[in-house]
């Protein structure tokens, strides 16, 4: 983390310039009093019970992320798509597990990406030009972000309050965090990877481990895989078509 960026970060949180001279622990003391974590999602839902049941069966396990990485991803997706008054969010939808599973497979290895050198630094219009595979970018990004959080707060990202977490994610999104070996553009690419995987995991078919109980589809009213609307499209003019969404597994089971 460069001093300039850290000062900008602290400045945003209302810390005076002098605060940058404090030891990390003291900074954390000053920065810490922020709104509490998001209110607990009210009551045990069917979904939570289903998750608990799924966990008990032991069929789903993280196979790529290590424990600190898993905490990071769980905390991050919970901020990107939080549980709130509208209902459960990305964490509850199993998005962290989805990300783990994507990274452990072909996508994580960039199987369909062109990954031959030489490597050049292009302009944004030329797209991704890093030699890092998605699985590498995730690990590099988590480590650099946790290093930033340790330097600023003395805590890993997952241990921060939600407002601090949101601030860190905002800085990643805005390319404002860097470190000696990880420039802001790399951390921005990391954020975009995390972001796109989170969206995918929230809305992809539940077969991939996210969108549990079709949480994402129910949020927007997407009917899922049993998609046959001939006849209906003419009937449902300015009238919401409501149906219990069907996953591939549901539809194939008919």
């Amino acid at each position, binding site marked *: 983390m460069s001093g300039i960026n850290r000062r900008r970060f602290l400045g945003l949180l209302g810390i005076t310039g002098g605060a940058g001279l404090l030891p990390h622990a003291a900074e954390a003391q000053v920065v810490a009093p922020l709104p509490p974590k998001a209110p607990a999602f009210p009551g045990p839902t069917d979904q939570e019970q289903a998750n608990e049941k799924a966990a008990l069966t032991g069929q789903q396990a993280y196979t790529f992320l290590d424990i600190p990485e898993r905490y990071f991803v769980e905390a991050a997706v919970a901020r990107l798509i939080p549980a709130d008054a509208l209902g459960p969010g990305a964490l509850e939808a199993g998005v962290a597990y989805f990300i783990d599973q994507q990274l452990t497979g072909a996508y994580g290895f960039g199987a369909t990406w062109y990954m031959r050198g030489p490597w050049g630094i292009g302009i944004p219009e030329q797209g991704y030009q890093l030699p890092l595979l998605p699985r590498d970018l995730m690990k590099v990004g988590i480590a650099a972000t946790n290093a930033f959080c340790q330097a600023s707060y003395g805590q890993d990202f997952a241990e921060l309050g939600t407002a601090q977490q949101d601030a860190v994610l905002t800085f990643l999104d805005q390319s404002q965090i860097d470190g000696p070996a990880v420039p802001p553009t790399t951390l921005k690419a990391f954020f975009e990877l995390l972001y796109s995987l*989170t969206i995918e995991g929230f809305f992809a078919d539940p077969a991939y481990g996210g969108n549990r109980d079709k949480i994402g589809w129910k949020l*927007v009213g997407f009917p899922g895989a049993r998609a046959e609307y001939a006849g209906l499209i003419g009937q449902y003019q300015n009238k919401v078509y409501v149906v219990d969404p069907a996953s591939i597994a549901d539809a194939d089971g008919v």
Partner: protein
Amino acid sequence: MATRLPSVDVVIIGVGWGGSIFAKELTDLGLRVVGLERGGNRDTSTDFRLPNYNRADELRYAHRGDLFQNLSRDTVTFRHTTHDTALPMRQLGSFLPGEGLGGAGVHWNGQNWRFLPWDFETRSQTLRRYGAKALPPDNMVADWGVTYADLEPYMDKWEYLCGISGKAGNIQGKIQPGGNPFEGPRQRDFPNPPLTPSYGMTLFQQAAAGLGYHPFFTPAANSSQPYTNTYGVQLGGCLYCGFCERFGCEAYAKASPMTCVFPVLLPSPHFDLRTHTTVTRLNLDNTRRRVTSVTYVDAQGLEYEQPADLVLLTAWTLNNVRLLLVSGIGTPYNPSTGEGVVGRNYAYQAGTGATMFFENQVFNPFMGSGALQMAIDDFNGDNFNHAGLGFIGGGSLTLSSTGARPIDTHPTPVGTPRWGSAWKTAVAHYYQRFLGMGVQAGVLAYRGNYLDLDPTYRDAFGLPLLRMTFDWGPNEHAVSRYMVPVLQRLASAMKADKVSVGPLSAHYSIVPYQSTHNTGGVIMGTDPRASAVNKYLQMWDVPNLFVVGASAYPQNAGYNPTGTLGGLIYWTVDALKNKYLKHPGPLVS
């Protein structure tokens, strides 16, 4: 060392739309045809049939690119100008080339346009009506060497192959109510009636008509009812499933080489289909005026040389250009002199879009079909007076209901954060309450926009990648600026509560998806110094080689390119059957 195989009559490189139709027509004559397809085999009746709901998998098909070109083997490099260094397109984005049997004809949407008569004579008609000053500096705008009237019977043939759904606007010169009054005259109506419009399309239709424009149904290669095509193949009726573009069709309703041609082609004893075969070179004889064979690598990594009397290069646009360049066929285009023919006049499609949000109306956006779309052509081609406007051409303006799969489609109004509770709230609220509208504008050819071989980067076979040098020109920006208020006017007329209009980006970016409407590089024309193929898509230099694709377009029009290409395919079939095969040699001297 390549194994030399026995000679055949015809080798086809790339078995998509063009390859399958040529194979069908030429095997019907009794010719022995070999089809070389670098991707795998594929069959609608087993890959996409119902019940098989995993075809409705947005992650697999739309995001992981199941039907698309695998870039780990080859890609293109890209830069804006000759002063920049091109870098590889490492991930798919701007365009989505197909791979495997059927090519991009499997995963297209099916928006099936005939280009306007003006589009084929852009240069001469512009000079005639507006004078040379109307053309931007460094333009390479050209006439095609064929006219709309030449191609009309062949576009008709294509439309009856595909079972196009629509409503004619001009039958033999007589304007038809409800159709596109600006279209060129057609001999008869479409084979199928229009699809059922969505609610959003109905709103657009009313608003556009109220403003004095002329709304009509986009001609759709999504059959609105069961249909038996010109080869006797049965198509089904569209289910409006909303998984069309980027997906295979489970209902046999989207026209594709699999649904329209393969059932009658594959049983032919004269057709020899070889999948997982990558052509690496076309071989010339020592006069350099005749292709003697093509070299390919098969699925075992073994190299073969397949001799043939006639070679049809029917790969995708960019691959047509690249195979000619790596084979040393035709003079490569040189942007500093403006000379040379292979790689020139690369063009694309320029988009200007609007997203509208409605507080009190709902649209069920997941119901849709690839070409379920209402359009106006009032601002396309030379359908409006351009005097004093500072640009030529324009684009089709459409409101589509192509299906809103939620990973990709969850729009929010400007000012909404990208994530967090506010984002989530907006997504939940607006998913049912948005409509998308857009202008698909043509792109002119410019001296600096071209394709050549990259000096640095190579593919899995050790061959140079194609290098794309491209950016928007002044005409594209001027069209977009002109279209923004048109879109705003329509949004107001539709009573949208909020609207976000996205004009053309300052510079072309290879990152966001725009369209797979890449054109040019092996353009057709009347002058061998300024075109690579003659009006029958026959290489000027090498008469037993035909190069078929949107690579032939001298510039791109304000429409999806496939419908016009279908006409060109049948036009070329006719030239082969009735001219070339009777007297092999140059068809234009």
